[in-house]
């Protein structure tokens, strides 16, 4: 345990990077995922097709492959960015598809009567969506979205193979430096991940309770 204590700054910085990856790609994926969901339920066929094509392709591709494409592929297209930025792009591209599906299922869970009523009072499509459907959809979407974000926190660890010093790669490096500390490092890192998972879980719970309405 002494070694772990000595290296606490390094380990904490690793988890800091994990949180940075999760939060920034989480926010971006929320925006893109919602946009994709709107495209997929909207009345414009080309956008609908593009949305479903994106989701189909990304959902069936391993995240590791998305990382390979971003980290090693984009520089071949003369896009040069930091490794952390590539990781954020890869996680955003991947998570957006799952956010889209969660939001879309939320939109589909809004009762048809609500939408018909909104249309009957003459709201145009964008107002039906922004005033009536999405507020209710987001409420229904919090539990599935919670598991998408729980998965995102864990998915940040794929960056281990792509030169990002997040928690798992710090673990691998330190275990390499001092093999006798492997198990205390394992335990420490596991506790860190579980703490992050607990934060996401608690956040989803609070949001769920805060937005719940008694029908």
């Amino acid at each position, binding site marked *: 345990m002494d070694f772990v204590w000595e290296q606490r700054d390094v380990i904490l910085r690793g988890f800091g990077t994990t949180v940075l990856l999760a939060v920034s790609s989480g926010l971006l994926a929320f925006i893109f995922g919602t946009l994709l969901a709107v495209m997929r339920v909207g009345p414009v*066929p080309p956008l609908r097709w593009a949305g479903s094509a994106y989701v189909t392709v990304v959902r069936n591709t391993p*995240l*590791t492959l998305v990382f*390979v494409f971003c980290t090693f*592929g984009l520089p071949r297209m003369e896009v040069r960015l930091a490794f952390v930025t590539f990781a954020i792009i890869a996680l955003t591209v991947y998570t957006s598809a*799952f956010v889209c599906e969660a939001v879309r299922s939320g939109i589909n869970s809004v009762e048809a009567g609500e939408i018909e009523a909104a249309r009957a009072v003459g709201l145009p499509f964008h107002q039906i969506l922004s005033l009536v459907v999405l507020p209710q959809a987001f409420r229904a979407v919090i539990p599935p979205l919670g598991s998408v974000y729980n998965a995102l926190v864990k998915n940040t660890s794929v960056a281990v193979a792509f030169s990002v010093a997040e928690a798992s790669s710090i673990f691998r490096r330190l275990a390499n430096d001092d093999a006798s500390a492997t198990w205390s490092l394992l335990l420490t890192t596991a506790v860190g991940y579980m703490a992050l998972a607990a934060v996401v879980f608690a956040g989803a719970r609070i949001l769920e309770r805060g937005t719940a309405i008694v029908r």
Partner: protein
Amino acid sequence: MATALYDVPGPRARTRSLIGSIVGGLVLVAVVAFVIKRLSDTGQFRREFWEPFGGAGVQRILLRGLLATLRAAGLALVLALLLGTLLAVGRLSSRAPVRAVSTAVVELFRALPLVFLILFAFIGLPELGIDTGPFSSVVIGLTLYNGSVLAEIFRAGILAVPRGQVEAAFSLGLSKAAVTRLIQLPQAVRVMLPVLVSQLVVLLKDSALGFIVAYPELLRSGRRIYTNVGNVIPTAIVVAAIYIAINLALSTLASYLERRFGGGRRSRPGADVPPEIGVGAP
């Protein structure tokens, strides 16, 4: 319902949606054209980048990688099914300690990243004198993670069996074990089959994490190709196409099973199970 979002369009709405289609289509075409231009400007469509995929050598590497992927995923699936059944039965046990231990195991392995579980098997277990190579590390990681996810799916499936069935079985004098084995599991499996197959898609995708510990699966084989030829993007596209083809076939199977077995009474076994998303659900 999404279909309620808009009416059968009248003439004005049709004009508007036509304009929307044209504008949206143009934007999409512009985006795609930009990406393709960028790809061709940087020479990604060069012959020497794509020609290797026609050759027997490269094809053999990819085929061997695909077989390695299927081997790891297949073995992990079998082991995960066993572990999942064990944990699900444990979680539904009438003995409190068994329940507590199973719950703790499930929650632990669901909270940890799959990458971390693979590293645990790859770096941690050898410290205890258990010799694990890349293959066993991938299989152990996939088994622990998917076993605990499957346990939740099984549990939900078992709980979805109508109570009357269980009560009837008990009243016939069957023991608890017999009720689980003869009444609950057979009915649960039927309902769970589609969810099970979609979990297989997740497992197959996650096996690509073998990349990290240099297990020569499909993606790693792709790496062997692009480090030799320097064609990262063409290789990534080819490998992605293989993954997508296999996973789409599996998804089609899943929706067929859903139609075949899931129809009629809408018991949704996956309702409180997280949606399938890879690596801790990659």
